[in-house]
C-alpha cells in the first residue's frame, strides 16, 4: 500500500482531489489512532454530541 499510494497514477488522482498520501508503518498509524481518539473525545464533550 505504501508503494501504491505513491505510484504516479494514484498520486495524481489523489492530488486532483486535494488528497495527500500518507503511508508509514503500522506502529506510526497506531499512534495516530491513539491521538485521534483523545482529540475526538475532547471534541465530543465540547460539542455535546453523543449516541443515545
Amino acid at each position, binding site marked *: *500500500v505504501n508503494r501504491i*499510494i505513491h505510484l504516479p497514477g494514484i498520486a495524481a488522482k489523489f492530488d486532483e*482531489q*486535494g488528497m*495527500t498520501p500518507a503511508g508509514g508503518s503500522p506502529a506510526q498509524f497506531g499512534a*495516530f489512532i491513539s491521538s485521534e*481518539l483523545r*482529540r475526538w473525545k475532547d*471534541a465530543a464533550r465540547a460539542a455535546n454530541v453523543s*449516541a443515545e
Partner: protein
Amino acid sequence: MKLIGEGVGRHARLLLAPLTAIALLAALAAPALAQTWPTRPIRLIVPFAAGGANDIVARLIQPDLEQALGQPIIIENKPAASGTVGTDQVAKATPDGYSLLMAFTTHTVNPAVNAKLPYDTERDLAPVVLIGKSPLLFIVNPSVPAKTLSQFVALAKQNPRKFNYGTPGATSQAHLVIALWSKLAGIEMQHVPYRGGAPAVLGTVAGDVQLTLMSPIASLAQINAGALRPLATGVPSAIRIFPTCQALPRAAFRTSKPWPGPASSRRPERPQRSSAASMRK
C-alpha cells in the same frame, strides 16, 4: 474580548483545518500473517455507501493492490450506524489477514460518542496503514444566498432552525465538527444524518439540506457541475482546486471581532486534557 475564551483554542485546529483521514485496518495481529499470505481473495469492507470518499479511495487502489498481492480484493459496502456495523464485522472476523476495513476519521470519532460499541477500536483491529488525508469543505446548495461562511452564519442567525445540515451519519466527524462550530458561532440548525457521504452529497444537491461538510473526493463532480458550492475550508491546499473557496483565517478565534460571528454566551465545557493534533498536516 475573545470569542468564547480559552476553551476555543484547543478546538481551533479541529475547526479551522478540518481534514479527514482514510486508512486500512485489519482483523489480525500483524506478526501472525502466514508467509504464504495471500492464497485466496481478500475481503475489504467499506462501512459506508458506495460513492463516498473511502469507497472511492478503496476502488482507486483496488486494481494495484490486487496486482501487488496476486489475489482479488472483494469490496463490500456495509452502510449502517456510522460505520460501526461494517467495522464490527471486521473486528469479529477471523484474524487471518483476509478481512480488511477501509476506515476514515469517523472510526476514531465513534468511540468518543458511543460508549456501547460492540468492539474495542484499539484492541480488536490492527492498524495496517494510513492511506491519506483529505481536506473537508463547507459546502452549500447553490440556492443558498451566501458566498462566504460568514454570510452563511449571518443568514442562519436571521433564520434560526431554518437550515438543515447533512452529514454521512449521526455522530460522524462532520456531525461533530458542524455541531461544535455552530455552537461556537451561535447558530441553530437541524441535523440530517445520511448513510454515508454519497447520500449526504445527493441530499445537499437536492436541497433537502442546505449545508454539508465534505471531502472533495466525494463532492468534486457535483462542485464542478455547479450543483454544489464550496464556501470555505481551513486547508490551504484545497484553495488550489477551489479558488473561490474562502480560506478560514487561523487567527480568527483569537481576535476581538472574530469569525465565525458574535460571541455566544456559553463557554464549551472544559476538556480534561489537551488534544494531540500534532500528526495532522
